[in-house]
């Protein structure tokens, strides 16, 4: 039954030795920034943890997060972790459909009330329930209903965590994040577009072994979102030396100089992309020659343009600047004209000025 630990049995079935598992746990400590000596403890905890029931809700999303977590290149222990949960509902992955699928969800909710884990990808539209619904149930209703009996919620991807693309200006559906609706349950945000697969499974592993990880003020596990990409970037020495690529195909870009001027959001983006990397540690956007978009941060679509340097103003500065020049010159000329007129008038009327009036005027300004 779901409450019995499954991992040792599965390891046996897959012909995975405990040594392999220990190796995976060592890698896990590395990515979770835990002391490496913790590896045997994590192994033990994962082996004895009961198998949790998981309900995965997909709302306004692109399925990129599901793709990322289920498509590691080789069969791996990460998959094993993913397999070790009892995924009782995931409308993209499950075989059942329609009423049968919804029935599975309701059954899981009943059987494991108060103990199941809810994973959400996608944001929730508030303007019209009909903008996104599953089996005739609006996203809002399904989230509220399912969250009520959950032990915890994991918001996978920036849409579920912060609103993401659906919430980007002008937010046509009135999309919000899970945490904007559910306030009485622990929520772990795992943002990213998509999040790094290893990060998703590691958070899951952490939940299975030690419960809810330590979170930052944006609800993200500190182990993965404590440091900016900029601080861990291999191009950082070029930033410090003042060497920057000016375009995507100049000498600087070819020599691997810093991409700050090309709009890289590394300095304000917290994630482990620069160390854990993507596609089995092959590379990450900056290594591929493109600046960071800042996809693990709230409102990243609207934060001043992907290709604009972080230091550049984000508003209507060009039009404002032109208007200021015209207005400034006109007002200056007008002021001068008035002053001349006043002077002529004062002269004509023989007004007198003494040192005290001047001092008074000086004091006022």
């Amino acid at each position, binding site marked *: 039954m779901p409450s019995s630990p499954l991992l040792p049995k599965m390891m046996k079935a897959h012909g995975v030795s405990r040594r392999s598992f220990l190796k995976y746990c060592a890698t896990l400590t590395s990515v979770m920034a835990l002391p490496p000596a913790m590896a045997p403890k994590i192994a033990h905890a994962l082996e004895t943890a009961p198998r949790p029931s998981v309900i995965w809700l997909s709302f306004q999303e692109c399925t990129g997060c599901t793709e990322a977590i289920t498509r590691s290149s080789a069969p791996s222990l990460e998959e094993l972790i993913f397999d070790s949960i009892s995924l009782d509902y995931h409308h993209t992955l499950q075989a059942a459909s329609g009423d049968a699928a919804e029935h599975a969800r309701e059954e899981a909710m009943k059987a494991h009330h108060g103990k199941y884990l809810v994973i959400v990808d996608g944001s929730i539209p508030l303007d019209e329930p009909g903008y996104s619904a599953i089996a005739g149930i609006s996203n809002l209703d399904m989230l509220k209903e399912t969250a009520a009996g959950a032990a915890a919620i994991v918001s996978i991807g920036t849409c579920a965590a912060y609103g993401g693309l659906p919430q980007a200006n002008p937010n046509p559906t009135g999309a919000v994040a899970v945490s904007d609706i559910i306030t009485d349950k622990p929520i772990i945000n795992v943002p990213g577009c998509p999040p790094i697969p290893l990060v998703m499974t590691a958070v899951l592993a952490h939940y299975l072994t030690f419960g809810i990880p330590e979170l930052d003020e944006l609800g993200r596990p500190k182990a993965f979102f404590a440091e900016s990409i900029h601080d861990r970037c291999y191009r950082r020495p070029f930033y410090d030396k003042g060497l920057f690529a000016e375009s995507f195909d100049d000498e600087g870009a070819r020599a691997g100089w810093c991409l700050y001027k090309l709009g890289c959001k590394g300095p304000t983006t917290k994630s482990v992309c620069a160390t854990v990397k993507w596609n089995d540690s092959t590379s990450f956007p900056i290594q591929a020659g493109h600046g960071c978009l800042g996809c693990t941060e709230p409102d990243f679509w609207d934060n001043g343009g992907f290709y604009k340097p972080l230091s550049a103003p984000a508003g209507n500065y060009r039009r404002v600047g032109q208007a200021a020049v015209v207005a400034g010159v006109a*007002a200056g000329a007008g002021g001068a004209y008035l002053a001349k007129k006043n002077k002529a008038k004062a002269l004509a009327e023989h007004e007198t000025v003494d040192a005290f009036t001047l001092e008074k005027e000086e004091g006022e300004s």
Partner: protein
Amino acid sequence: MNNPNFDLLMFARGPLFDIALLVFVAGVLIRVVEILILGRKKDFSKAKGQPVQQGIKTIFTRTFPRPGAIKANPITIVGGYVFHIGFFIAFLLFVPHIALIEELTGLSWPGVGRVVIEGATVLAVIAGLALLYTRWKDPVRRKLTTWVDYLVLILSLLPLITGYVAVNKLFGDPTFMMALHVLSVDILMIVFPFTKLMHAFTFAMARYYNGSIQGRKGAES
């Protein structure tokens, strides 16, 4: 869910920067245009020397202190130099700042490395604090100083301090400190046209007038 620190940064970079830019550009232009149009009363006497040449020359010669001035007021003069040079190195040679200026004007030039920028910043802040101290300590200067003068000096130091803290992540959330940095610059830009900070633009005109008056009289300046 929002990141309040980032929202503050976006406000400082966005709408507030627009307002600051409007006040700064329009304010500076109003004052400079007015000064230029008003000009000086025409002097009909025959010039005994070379007013134009002396005027232009004075713009540059007044950059250097007259003999004995350093000895009389070492902190004011040396501190003044260090502050101004340090401020402009940090402002004009730090690449993120150049990126900003390029975005606004299309003009760009190469920057320098972090060691130079941070060295200049630290020296400028120390010099600024020394200037603040002597201004407050010397009874005569203290009497001459209004609260606006203190405010302006402190507002000029804030961008240097907040920038240094934000880039080096000394304390506070780095995004929040960066927002404070941009905010401090916005405020500096807004108060600029209404305070003695205008000297950055009017110094040349003032020196020219002084030099040309002397030049007309046949004196060297």
